[in-house]
């Protein structure tokens, strides 16, 4: 009996090329730092540049954070859906890595939106939660996001986890327009108590500028965080593969790396 040497051509460890990670890391750092600085500037603008809203006072300033987080939460979900479709189609592991990174950021931003929302609602409409269309929609997205992670975690093996979670993202993406329509329609059937117009009779230019700048700042920060998380995810997967290789051989990590 002769022992044949394995050909490592399709070895996922070899395939998991870490080359591109260096520039990704660099950009991640740059964007995050830039984003962080921009956010600080935005915060300054929020507190010192934008005028205090007549009717709502200080709390109204949460609007400048709330709107960007809502937008970014939805963007992150969009990226998740797109990359999940890509993963199912091309089975490229990197797309799944982007997807899961985006899903995590989505959870962060959606939670932030759902936290700021009630604060705003309390002041604007007198109640902590009034089934405002936007918030309701965000709430449903948040639950889908949670479901994504629960499904991934409950899978029997990582490959199944990626596959199932991607399908969930895909179905959710198809559902989003319908959820949106139904929730907004639901809202029109049940008008909320309109106490005041939160933006005032005209939106002063400072308000619009602050809002736009804040959105830009947070978006840059988001991009940086996404790249950061993606780089980390790639590294983690590479390590898992090496570990699996070492375990299989009954050998050491060193040997796995060398091969």
């Amino acid at each position, binding site marked *: 009996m002769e022992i*044949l040497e*394995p050909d490592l051509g*399709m*070895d*996922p460890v070899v395939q998991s090329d870490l080359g591109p990670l260096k520039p990704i890391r660099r950009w991640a750092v740059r964007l995050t730092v830039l984003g962080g600085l921009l956010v600080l500037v935005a915060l300054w603008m929020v507190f010192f540049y934008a005028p205090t809203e007549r009717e709502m006072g200080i709390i109204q300033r949460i609007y400048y954070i709330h709107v960007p987080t809502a937008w970014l939460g939805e963007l992150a979900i969009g990226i998740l859906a797109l990359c999940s479709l890509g993963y199912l189609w091309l089975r490229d592991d990197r797309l799944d890595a982007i997807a899961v990174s985006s899903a995590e950021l989505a959870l962060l931003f959606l939670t932030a939106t759902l936290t700021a929302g009630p604060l705003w609602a309390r002041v604007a409409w007198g109640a902590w939660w009034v089934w405002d269309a936007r918030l309701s929609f965000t709430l449903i997205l948040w639950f889908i996001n949670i479901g994504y992670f629960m499904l991934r975690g409950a899978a029997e093996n*990582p490959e199944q986890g990626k596959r199932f979670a991607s399908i969930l993202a895909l179905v959710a993406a198809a559902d989003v327009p319908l959820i949106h329509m139904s929730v907004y329609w639901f809202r029109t059937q049940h008008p909320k108590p309109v106490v005041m117009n939160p933006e005032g009779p005209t939106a002063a230019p400072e308000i619009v500028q602050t809002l736009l700048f804040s959105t830009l700042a947070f978006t840059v920060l988001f991009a940086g965080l996404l790249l950061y998380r993606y780089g980390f995810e790639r590294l983690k997967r590479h390590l898992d*593969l090496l570990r699996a290789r070492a375990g299989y051989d009954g050998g050491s990590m060193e040997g796995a790396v060398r091969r």
Partner: protein
Amino acid sequence: MEKWFGGHPAVQKIDFSLSPGEFLTIFGPNGAGKTTLLRLLAGSLRPTRGEVLLSGAPLDYDETAWRRRIGVLSHRTFLYGHFSAVENLRLYGRLYGVDAVSERIEAGLRQVGLWERRDDRVGTYSRGMQQRLALARTLLHDPEIVLLDEPYTGLDPHAAAMLRGVLDHLRDGRRAVVLVTHNLSQGLELADRVVVQVAGRWVSDEPRSSIDPVAFERVYTERVGGLA
């Protein structure tokens, strides 16, 4: 072809062909990837690299007509306990598009000795009887390629002898049979070609005629038996 599960190579660079009329037996310890290999051959799994060719053409996983040519017997029976033997076979017969289904069901059940119990629910069958019915199911659609994954598991001597008889029948010159088993004597009995698979690789591939059962058993137990 190769098959990787995450970082783990279940099947490493196995490359072979099987001709009609050939009876191949694969021995190997647990975890050698024998079941994975069978699943690749059956078209249940796609190889990470390489391909499976059927009559020279690669398997088209989106189109399914070629599945009619393959029969698989696993240690799970693929049967529904609430259905009778006949109902189970009729279901598979219809899905495989078998002609003259009722006649073939009767012939199959008689061959495995279950005709008397044909209307009883499979849930009431003993393990050996279920395995026999599974065998009938495997051959119902007259497949050219028969893949058997440890079919002797859980069979009493009577059923095992019957299985051997059926397998012998399969060596009719036009079918290819792959048998995966732990049992050396049963595996060697009917084989034309004997392979030993360890850790995803074929470490030995010999025609049956060049094997001396006693020596083979000794070497196998020594080198491989400890790995099981």
